[in-house]
């Protein structure tokens, strides 16, 4: 059986990781991302996500595999798990990647 998939991209303005939602919108929250369980739906979502590329909202949308668990979907790769957290996995020491950009 093919793995379930989601669509992700980076936002054009700041490169932030975003997920394609069932409402054909984009969210920074992994939990908002739509999960497709068959290849046809996933490919359709990817094709639909290209509209946001033309609209200059996102860069490079692609599909990635998720495992659907009782707790919800979870990326199967370390790369996508780290992207979903929007930050490095280690605690900041000298700087603070967790903090907001100063204005």
């Amino acid at each position: 059986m093919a793995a379930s998939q989601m669509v992700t991209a980076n936002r054009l303005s700041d490169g932030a990781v975003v997920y394609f939602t069932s409402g054909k919108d984009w969210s920074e929250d992994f939990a908002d991302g739509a999960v497709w369980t068959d290849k046809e739906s996933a490919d359709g979502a990817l094709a639909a996500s290209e509209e946001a590329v033309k609209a200059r909202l996102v860069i490079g949308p692609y599909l990635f595999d998720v495992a659907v668990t009782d707790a919800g979907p979870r990326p199967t790769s370390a790369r996508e798990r780290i992207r979903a957290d929007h930050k490095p996995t280690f605690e900041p020491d000298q700087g603070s990647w967790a903090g907001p950009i100063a204005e």
Partner: protein
Amino acid sequence: MYRYDEFDATIVQERVSQFRGQVARRLAGELTEDQFRPLRLKNGLYLQLHAYMLRIAVPYGVLSSKQMRKLAYIARRYDRGFGHFTTRQNIQFNWPQLGDVPDILQHLAEVEMHAIQTSGNCIRNVTADQFAGVAADEIEDPRIWAEIVRQWSTFHPEFSYLPRKFKIAVTGAPDDRAAVRVHDIGLRIVKNEAGEAGFEVWVGGGLGRTPIIGVAIRKFLPKEHLLSYLEAVLRVYNLLGRRDNIYKARIKILVQATGGDKFAQLVEEEWEKIKDGPLHLPKGEIDRIHRYFAPPAYEKLDDIDPAFETAKLENPEFARWARTNLVKHRVPGYAIVNLSLKPEGGAPGDASADQMDLLADLADEFSLNEVRVTHHQNIVFPNVRKRDLFALWQRLKPAKLATSNLGFISDIIACPGLDYCNLANARSIPVAQRLSRHFSDPRKLDDIGELRLNISGCINACGHHHVGHIGILGVDKQGQEFYQVTVGGSSKDDASLGRIVGAAFSEDDIVPAIDTIINTYLANRTDRSERFLDYVRRVGTDPFKEALYGPAPARRTAAE
């Protein structure tokens, strides 16, 4: 230090204006990402895992205090309060917004900095010995030549679309601190039998997925011919280097395929045609660049400073730092100070905006306004009076900039890895953090002695794992991070590539595995004078394999 002339200032300012227009056109939809991507990369702007990343050039690793202060400002104003010093003596900011980048480049231009030659298939930012101009063992100052190469290579029209990126390193001392043998071109300043200084030219070295130690294609090149000879090397590469396969496009592949002797012959033939042309360096021009790097006004001091000696006697912690982090200066009474960016549990090469501001202030107060960045991801104050060392150390310590670990196992080179990088397969920084905590006891460090441990998060080898005495390479196995270990690498005069000890270790097992390797060395070295690297070269990998995976018959059984 070099100061921009009108040409430098003009081309950098024009580049800022061009990029401002390109960003505006991208945001307005006049450029697609496919059209914009090569333009942003030519200005050091990558798209990484979580955000854009801006890589800023620090030519041959030299920064003024004013420039360091500007980097602190950018970190604070446009990023998240810190920056990452890289293995190519550059600095990267990890969270800039696209619309802010032209303003960041404008700020950089105001202090004679930019992000040119930090990406793309061009001649990249030139690197050099971090102790250039102040090292006691130096034949000649490599900064003059690195600067001349910079001026020749920036926007060189013939070499803007090479088959692949191209990295040049220069060292002026017999002790190679610039890793010249693992660069596309490595230049060593040497003296010939007549006592004249010139260059030994190495080509075709490199790391990445095909690590190769370069070959010396010319034992002595008179200095005035440097640019024509480099042009000949680049021209041969540009014409014959492969463009059909990105993994075979570096000059190292061409040199291996052609053969070192044949490649040298091709270069010599090309060079004969151009050596006395416009690239021949007139003495006046060499002297002009030389003057930019005239020594600062050093005081006349005794080499032994009583206050420094007393402070060492009274403070063992300071004495240890002085023993591990200072290097002999060529001027009596001065020292070269290494400031470790590898505190226990820290991210190698990271510095906060506050630390950068402090470094700028301390450089003004103690180091004649100058700072260096090393390819080991540390900072150097090149000009500190010995009598000021204790005061400097006291100021560094609260800022976590006085870690006594230069050249020890916790002085780890680590790429950003999967915590930041789009190319990485595994995380590097958390492994480095755990190792630095595991090997934090100064007595343990002293017992282990000189040991270079380098970590890369993928085969592209930005963390130089192939040339670590111990190298760790992150690999992906079905979505899980694993770590392959090599031993016996070196990037110095005795350059060698590490050999794989066996199957990769899981994230949980990698620190115990390194501990086993260290314990194997400590238990079996002839005595303390046999360094880890010496031991590996004497015994090979078998003792490590046995300690890590069991006796040979058991390993065979397990494999079957």
